[in-house]
């Protein structure tokens, strides 16, 4: 070659669209297809199963309400994991931060029940976010100071949180009913359900937390794209060395990013307590799994806040419909976990697609260089 050139590999417009929307879409379809095979192999009827699932997720106002209910925490945890990913941090322990947020809500909800609703709810939610952030702080500090991998530390903190909550609900905050649970919160701190402010719909369980989750998605988008912190987070995630050279502190950005991630997960827990259970249960035996599904949500959304809302809606619908699927088609709702794992695989495997695109472009480029030389 006579000259070396800096070649910027640009994707054509439709290829970019294909990768952003097409790949997640195809991944979901592929995962559903493999899920169908598993259902069929174990003696079920996949068509009936997915029909029952759709019916259970979107069949009417009550079903749509259930889907929104299940979507709400997943928006929060999806945002939490996505925010971490943007700084190249894998917050696998959102489950624990969620439990701490729920703990804060159950506690502050009892303490602040006397305040006016408009003041109490924001304060309790804030408490949930702070507890979640605090639970991410030690792993963040360890990552920033000694490089302890956040995948191991946040996971360990998750288990510690579950046992801590388990102690709180049987000990200090127990309602002494024999069931491991805290006392019921006063309805003044409940997040109201949609039927209370939308006239003419039957009672649904979907609650105001959904609106807060959407607002959180908007705030995360704003922080990431319009603030210095967001710029630092993206810079560190993209190329830590270059970011450091450019005057951004990797340590501080790491701590901020993981704590904000924890705060978002904490909001998920607070929203569940204020909006759904209105009290806190033992989390060891009835772990929500929202933290782990949040990983699937973030990956499917490619860490894009808008994408998180839609990915959460998908997984929310799967969760809401799975109950009906069990009822009508006798398929264990655990199939949803399998489909989640598969979706992560297929989405992440879009490297194959990228690889093909790059390869084609490289071949085209090489033949062009050869032609030029001749």
């Amino acid at each position: 070659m006579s000259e070396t050139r800096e070649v910027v590999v640009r994707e054509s417009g439709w290829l970019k669209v294909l990768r952003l929307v097409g790949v997640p879409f195809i991944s979901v379809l592929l995962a559903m297809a493999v899920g169908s095979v598993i259902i069929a192999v174990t003696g079920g009827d996949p068509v009936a199963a997915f029909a029952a699932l759709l019916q259970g997720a979107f069949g009417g106002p009550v079903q749509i309400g259930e889907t929104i209910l299940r979507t709400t925490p997943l928006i929060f945890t999806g945002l939490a994991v996505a925010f971490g990913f943007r700084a190249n941090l894998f917050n696998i322990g959102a489950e624990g931060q969620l439990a701490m947020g729920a703990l804060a809500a159950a506690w502050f909800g009892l303490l602040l029940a006397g305040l006016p609703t408009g003041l109490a709810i924001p304060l309790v939610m804030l408490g949930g976010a702070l507890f979640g952030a605090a639970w991410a702080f030690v792993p963040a500090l360890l990552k920033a100071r000694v490089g302890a991998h956040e995948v191991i530390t946040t996971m360990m903190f998750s288990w510690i949180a579950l046992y801590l909550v388990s102690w709180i609900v049987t000990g200090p905050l127990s309602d002494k009913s024999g069931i491991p649970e805290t006392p019921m919160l006063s309805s003044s701190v409940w997040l109201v359900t949609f039927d209370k402010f939308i006239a003419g719909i039957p009672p649904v369980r979907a609650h105001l937390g959904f609106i807060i989750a959407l607002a959180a998605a908007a705030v995360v988008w704003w922080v990431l794209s319009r603030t210095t912190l967001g710029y630092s987070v993206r810079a560190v995630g993209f190329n830590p060395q270059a970011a450091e050279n450019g005057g951004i502190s990797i340590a501080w950005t790491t701590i901020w990013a993981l704590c904000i991630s924890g705060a978002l997960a904490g909001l998920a827990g607070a929203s569940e307590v204020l909006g759904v259970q209105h009290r806190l249960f033992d989390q060891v035996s009835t772990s929500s799994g929202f933290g782990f599904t949040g990983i699937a949500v973030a990956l499917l959304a490619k860490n894009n806040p808008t994408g998180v809302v839609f990915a959460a809606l998908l997984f929310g619908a799967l969760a809401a419909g799975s109950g009906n699927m069990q009822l009508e088609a006798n398929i264990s709702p655990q199939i949803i976990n399998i489909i989640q794992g598969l979706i992560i695989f297929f989405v992440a495997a879009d490297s194959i697609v990228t690889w093909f695109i790059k390869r084609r472009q490289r071949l085209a480029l090489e033949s062009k260089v050869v032609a030029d030389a001749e």
Partner: protein
Amino acid sequence: MLSEVINPELFASAIRMATPLALAAIGGTICERSGVVNIALEGIMLIGAFFGVVVALAAGSTHISWLVAASPWLGILAAVVASVLMAGLHAFASITLRMDQVVSGTAINLLALGLTGFLMVTLYGHPGTTDPIPVAINAVFNFPTPAGGLLATAWSWIDQIVFSYTPIVYAAMIAAVVGQWALFHTRWGLHLRALGEHPRAADTVGIRVLRGRYVAVLISGVLGGLAGANLSIEQVGSFNENMTAGRGFIALAANIFGRWTPIGSYLASLLFGFADALQIKLQAFQSVVQIPVQFFLMLPYVLTVVVLAGVMGRAVAPAEVGKPYEKE
């Protein structure tokens, strides 16, 4: 009280508790030495634990006497096969497809959790715990207890701490020694470590990078399968949903604490095993010490964080760990 806590049974229990961690940690060591992070160990163990029990239950419920007698052994075999398949999936995704290794591991963990939960309900009609396996695996050695005297007491200590274990417990010790020898004193081990430190250089001198990494991940599948079988078939005698309870992650910490060496991994796992054994013993004295049981249950996880915090700055990981290799 002290003699009721600190006795030979405590140390024997520590070694038993350390076994699944150690096997997984050694698997993690071999993977990371070859340049592949294996977060999937948790799921690999879980799948092994599950299919081990499924096969042991199936073989044990037949009316063919030799099949019933062999049922736990067939279970161990099934555990290894299932875990190797799961490890193969991780290898394919992270080595061939060059997927982010941590993401691939997470997908496998979710898949394992979903698959075992789903199949549990499909096969046995209920979630939670399976029936106990009909035939258990006994200790390898079974020496008669000599009558009274100081010598007999000394012997009973040795008997409990050295000779009281089921086969996979010894397999873990052998894996540590053989693994150490293979990694640091054979040509194979030298090549494997080269893959994790400088795959490009290894490639240049003719070492097959991708194949070497595949072998490493599949070995971790074998060890993960044994770890799962130890948990379900040898220790508990049945399968509980999510019974690995974070052990795959603790094992990775043990691997780091053991400075990416098989014997180091084993010794670090002993520490975690001891913490686990101690907290189980102490639970019996909960009313005496007035500490809620949950704080005992937290101990292994807290210890993991403390150990990681203490050791991290000084331990050096293989240079290219976690990075997919692309031939030029």
